[in-house]
């Protein structure tokens, strides 16, 4: 009780030095008033992830701006022959629409979660996971096609050698994020389906009771993955 009194604004003067630091940080105050620690930590994790992807896109920009060799034209590199028609960038466009759709179903899953409609929440999360898996599958197809055509991290048939390393690094990291998202979506959809958050069943890891907010936290991660794709689409594929 004595420590608590020290940090009260109207009470005695607050302690200085190391004691003061400890007292201030343990004063049981919260900066984010109506956001739980789980959601706040997810936001802070996403902020750090933003910096990681920013660094990738920046190094790509630097490589592309400083090379004297012409950069391969993404519009042609990612074109596909469909039914005899040569359509530029079509695969990437389809992948974009799939990822946006998965974000839409995820947003609705969060909504139904807060309404405690566990069947609709679980089904929408599984649809999200299926769309995410489709996205990763198409990315695997894209990688296979490019590798067959001779794209390597150190060379490619069309121009600047840094094209391959930038492409594999950026889309590889993004695809990894999507893959982990799909795994966690399935794990949480299973909990929702089983009614863990209705019956107050304790989790296996922390043995705490969960609630439907975990669906929103999961949603934050998933929308972030979609958000990163918006930037990759603009800077890597459309530039």
């Amino acid at each position: 009780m004595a420590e608590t009194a020290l940090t009260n604004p109207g009470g005695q003067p607050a302690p200085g030095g190391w004691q003061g630091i400890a007292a201030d940080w343990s004063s049981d105050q919260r900066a984010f008033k109506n956001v739980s620690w789980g959601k706040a930590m997810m936001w802070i994790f996403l902020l750090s992830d933003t910096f990681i992807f920013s660094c990738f896109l920046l190094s790509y920009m630097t490589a592309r701006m400083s090379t004297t060799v012409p950069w391969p034209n993404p519009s042609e590199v990612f074109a596909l022959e469909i039914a005899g028609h040569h359509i530029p960038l079509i695969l990437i466009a389809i992948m974009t629409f799939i990822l946006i759709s998965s974000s839409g179903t995820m947003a609705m899953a969060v909504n139904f979660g807060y309404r405690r409609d566990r069947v609709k929440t679980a089904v929408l999360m599984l649809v999200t996971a299926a769309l995410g898996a489709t996205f990763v599958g198409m990315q695997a197809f894209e990688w296979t096609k490019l590798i067959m055509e001779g794209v390597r991290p150190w060379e490619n048939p069309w121009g600047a050698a840094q094209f391959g390393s930038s492409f594999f690094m950026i889309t590889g990291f993004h695809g990894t994020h999507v893959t982990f998202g799909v795994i966690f979506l399935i794990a949480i959809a299973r909990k929702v389906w089983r009614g863990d958050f209705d019956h107050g069943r304790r989790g296996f890891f922390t043995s705490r009771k969960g609630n439907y907010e975990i669906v929103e936290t999961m949603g934050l991660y998933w929308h972030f993955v979609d958000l990163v794709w918006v930037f990759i689409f603009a800077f890597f594929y459309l530039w």
Partner: protein
Amino acid sequence: MVDAAIHLERQQPSLHMHEAYASEATHAEGQQHPIKLYLVVWGWLFVLSTFSYLVDYFGLQGYLRWSLILLFMVLKAGLIVAVFMHMAWERLALTYAILLPPVLVLVFVAIMVFESEYTHLIRVLFFASPT
């Protein structure tokens, strides 16, 4: 329902009060928006993606291409963060804590633009093969 929950919590040891408060607040604050809102945003994201694809399809070049691509990108990112991630309904303390730091990345971008233009100049002057 909410009243009953608070009433029950009062009888429990105060250790759980904080946790209960947090979950209660999120339920009461409730990211409860009509499904229609999400469908409208979803539709807009489709339209904006189609527009940015068409920029490439019609082969627009130069500043027009750039301004359109960046405009559609910023609009899409804004819709996702504001509505899908519910940032529009969060308190400003969280919004600023999360959205301001990435803006500083623009300083890094400016630094690297200068750096890569310098590198490019040096390469053209000393390493480019004479044609």
